[in-house]
């Protein structure tokens, strides 16, 4: 299933944020969206996730496309542990072994029962990514998922995204053109 975004427009108080955005996110490929700050990348993702409505244009996807996402903010429940956060979002789809393997690969193997409010910024980002990758979905939206990650964790995160998202369309917002250099990536400048 590919996701076709066609001539999407959105304005706030008369000020246009998105103007005729058109692209296609193909399954098995990572569509990297790049634009300077304030050019509506996050607005575009919010429209894709169904959190906002576009003024005009269309998004063609499965009728009941199930999205998974890393938001611009981590959006984790601070009072819960990593497991608590994953169980909250995944419900019955939570698999203890899968989660343990992915958390370990993202460098969160030893967090135990520590609550998210005590995590560093990078740890929260990696947990938010783990949640998005473990959730059952048809397509993924990743809004700057590497913020606050060092080179080692960034490489591990890339590898996990490629493995876990295999075969699904991935739309990834980034400020770094180097992120779009992989063979499976396609760069779209807004």
């Amino acid at each position: 299933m590919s996701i076709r975004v066609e001539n999407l427009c959105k304005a706030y108080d008369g000020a246009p944020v998105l103007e005729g955005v058109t692209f296609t996110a193909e399954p098995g490929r990572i569509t990297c969206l790049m634009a300077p700050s304030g050019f509506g990348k996050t607005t575009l993702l919010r429209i894709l996730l169904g959190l906002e409505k576009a003024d005009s244009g269309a998004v063609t996807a499965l009728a009941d496309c199930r999205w998974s996402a890393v938001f611009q903010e981590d959006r984790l429940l601070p009072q819960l542990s990593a497991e608590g956060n994953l169980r909250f979002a995944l419900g019955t789809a939570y698999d203890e072994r899968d989660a343990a393997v992915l958390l370990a690969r993202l460098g969160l193997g030893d967090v135990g029962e520590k609550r998210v409010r005590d995590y560093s910024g990078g740890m929260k980002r990696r947990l938010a990514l783990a949640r998005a990758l473990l959730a059952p979905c048809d397509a993924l939206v990743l809004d700057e998922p590497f913020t606050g990650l060092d080179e080692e964790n960034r490489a591990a995160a890339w590898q996990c995204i490629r493995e876990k998202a295999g075969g699904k369309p991935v739309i990834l917002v980034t400020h770094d053109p180097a992120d779009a250099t992989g063979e499976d990536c396609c760069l779209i400048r807004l």
Partner: protein
Amino acid sequence: MKQRPDNNQIRVWAVVFWLLVWQGGSMAHSAAYPHGHLLLASPVAALTRLAELAVTASFWRTVASSACHIFGGFLLSCALGVVLAAAAARWRVLRELLSPLVAVVKAVPVVSFIILALVWLRAETLPLVIAALMVFPPVYLNVLAGIESADRQLLEMARVFRVPFSRRLRGIYLPAVLPHFRSAASLGLGLCWKSGVAAEVIGLPALSIGEALYNAKVYFLTPDLFAWTAVIVAVSVGFEKLFLAAVAAVERRVNA
């Protein structure tokens, strides 16, 4: 980390000081007037009277009857306040409909409600209704504020991941609402006892603390007045501690 001392904490020495002032005042009255001890009973006399009352079955029946009515009113109001706050957060029209009602209950003196309710209700149900009425505004308004303080970004996240309402309730709404509910319950527990006993004093239901207070006034039994007042304070504080401990236990469970 060194904790700052709580400036509002009640110190034993301060309590002893005021008890001594009370005792001294009572002794001065007794010395100055022939029946001075009737005007201001001493703390010793009040304590002695309390000990005499505490060994009678009617004392415990009176305390239990008042506690059931007043605490029942509190619980009823909590349930109603939570349900209506949840509905008002969902439907704006209900919120607008309830708004003047809540403002009226907050502004009108409790005694006006007591007298009005006495026209319509039996004396036995009066303390329950009045306690419920006084507790409703803080519970409703605080729970509503708590629901509205729930993190919008987390709610959006839950929507994207299709988290069912039961899990959203436990993970997002309850942690947001419980601190507000705790404040409202603490305030409401004090209010319900003050208003509930006032209703009993005016309505005079049989076997109630209010009736005992009224009798103490009619027969000039100041030791009884102080003894029953001490009972009201003790029962009110006891209920507050118990209820807030239960809320804290729920909070711990939600945050586990």
